[in-house]
């Protein structure tokens, strides 16, 4: 396979299951946090993973980052499956990834100065020359607009505001010149007025370096501004995958429809009507319902079908994929995009 044609990241039928132990040895079952996810991500594209807590989106990101080992399936980066990487190659892989976390203060060690924090990844990857370190640190702080740099490098995390802390986290994620950034709810703990600032910064960084971004959030309303594609996750599976505009226009899956219906815009008319929202809660990941996992809450569930068999993927619009029996008359898609 040519380098040019191959996507940066390819995930193939990925499953990440965690063992539940009752006693030291007895196994009580598995938490199936990611249960059959397949997609490709080229460079320069931002992908939004939207789902509620417990949908598996964070576990998916962590598996891609190499923090969890896949139970089956594979994460393929630049053509190389991660499971086949040796220790040294794995470390090199990590330099190609950046991780931006949800809690900006928790993501920074409170006892190190900003300079030390930024130098750590460099040291881990054996960039020990002081000058080179300084240069990279300068570069990256300029980019996230924590300037004047000389001021900020000596500060400690608690001296920074939430927005500044998150910029520092982004700086750290960028310092090894990665090709992919995983941002897990990067703005949900920030104030409303700061969120846009940080999201715009991430977008700018992505465009400047042609990065691939996996942007995880539960807040659909920010997604249209910052991603090319949206994946909706429910109960460890991707129920709908589409380019942003297509998803917002044609929300095929009933769950997507429910999400879109549930999210209010600030409009005084909202107070006059009740929202049409499915009752119930997301299912347990240890014992998901048989068949389609959304069927207990789905207003359009087809009796005899949805509760029996998991739907395959259909493509009702070009590039727009849904896992729902309602579209069984549309073009059917096998494993892989």
């Amino acid at each position, binding site marked *: 396979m040519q380098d040019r044609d191959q996507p940066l990241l390819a995930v193939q039928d990925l499953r990440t299951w965690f063992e539940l132990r009752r006693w030291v040895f007895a196994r009580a079952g598995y938490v199936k946090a990611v249960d059959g996810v397949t997609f490709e991500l080229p460079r320069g594209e931002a992908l939004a993973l939207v789902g509620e807590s417990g949908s598996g989106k964070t576990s998916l990101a962590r598996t891609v980052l190499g923090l969890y080992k896949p139970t089956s399936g594979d994460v393929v980066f630049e053509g190389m499956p991660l499971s086949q990487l040796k220790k040294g190659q794995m470390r090199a892989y990590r330099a190609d990834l950046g991780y931006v976390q949800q809690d900006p203060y928790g993501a920074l060690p409170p006892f190190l100065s900003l300079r030390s924090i930024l130098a750590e990844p460099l040291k881990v990857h054996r960039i020990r020359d002081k000058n080179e370190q300084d240069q990279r640190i300068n570069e990256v702080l300029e980019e996230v607009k924590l300037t004047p740099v000389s001021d900020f490098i000596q500060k400690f995390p608690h001296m920074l505001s939430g927005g500044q802390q998150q910029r520092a986290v982004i700086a750290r994620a960028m310092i090894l010149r990665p090709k992919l950034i995983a941002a897990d709810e990067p703005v949900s703990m920030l104030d*409303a007025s700061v969120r846009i600032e940080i999201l*715009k910064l991430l977008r700018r960084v992505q465009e400047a370096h042609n990065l691939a971004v996996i942007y995880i959030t539960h807040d659909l309303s920010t997604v249209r501004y910052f991603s090319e594609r949206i994946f909706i996750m429910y109960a460890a599976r991707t129920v709908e995958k589409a380019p942003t505009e297509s998803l917002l226009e044609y929300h095929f899956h009933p769950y997507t429809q429910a999400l879109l219906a549930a999210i209010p*815009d600030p409009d*005084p008319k909202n107070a006059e009507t*009740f929202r049409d929202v499915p009752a119930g809660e997301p299912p347990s990941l240890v014992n998901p319902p048989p068949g389609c996992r959304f069927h207990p809450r789905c207003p359009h569930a087809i009796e005899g079908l949805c509760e029996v068999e998991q739907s395959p993927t259909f493509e009702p619009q070009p590039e727009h994929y849904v896992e729902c029996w309602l579209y069984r008359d549309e073009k059917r898609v096998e494993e892989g995009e």
Partner: protein
Amino acid sequence: MAGNLLKVNDLVLHFRTTKGVVQAVDGVTFDMNRNEALAVIGESGCGKTSLVRAILRLLPKNVHTYTGNVFLNGVDTMKYSEERFRSEMRWVSMSLVAQAAMNALNPVLRVGDQVAEPLVVHQGLRKPEALAQASEVFRLVGVSEDFLGRYAFELSGGMRQRAIIAMALITKPDLVVLDEPTSALDMLTQANIMNVLKSIKRELEQSFIFITHDVATTSELCDRGAVMYAGQIAELGNSQQFYLDPYHPYAQKLMASVPTLHEKKELEFIPGQPPSLISPPTGCRFAARCHRRFEMCDQEPPLFELDDGRFVKCWLYK
């Protein structure tokens, strides 16, 4: 007619800390009618949680100043003694759904017992009667009465939040203050809880103060809205005015920074940070970040009342 339920007048709450005096609530004035839901929007550090504490008199030990008037049904509760406030006001006429309250359920008590507790404590009811009322209020919030006998860990996040709301409603208070009631919840659960609050408002004609940083969610419930900045109210108006056409520059910028799903909009953000509450700047507190400041802004503007009934703390509307 205005303010026939609650009138807050120049409420001040300052805390003493090792770093200085934090002027968390610095002269807040507003009023509310019965069967009205008021949103109080603000970002972190604006003093909205302290406002909750000030109204409900849930004060820590390091209070420096606590003055002003809080008229509930015409009576100034600030003049009540501690004991009287506790027995007659708190959780009798005014109750609170605190931030992350669903995590504050006592894990060793049954949910029904906890929800019924305010009745036992404040109205001296016996357990069976209190539980009967708990059952009724569970119906209101949409939780099956089977759950009365369960423990907190057996309930999902959404159900626990409903239980907490039930506990706040059970003494039929005049006013319920909700402090970030849906922040920790999933979107679908959030929508469900807002539906619950809507139905309670209609069925009981309940009045709410809804305090949060999540602007969009408040529009589901609230008839009026107020924006807090640096310990003061910047703008107060009815929901039409507040959400669609705010006057105060901060409120305008805030609304412009809320991402909308269903309509396309150019998002803005506000550069800079809110001022420290320990030594707030003289003059208008938003002036440093305001895109429309002018010379008058060096003095602190009063809260102007406009003809259309809204209040704006800005010299532009003199």
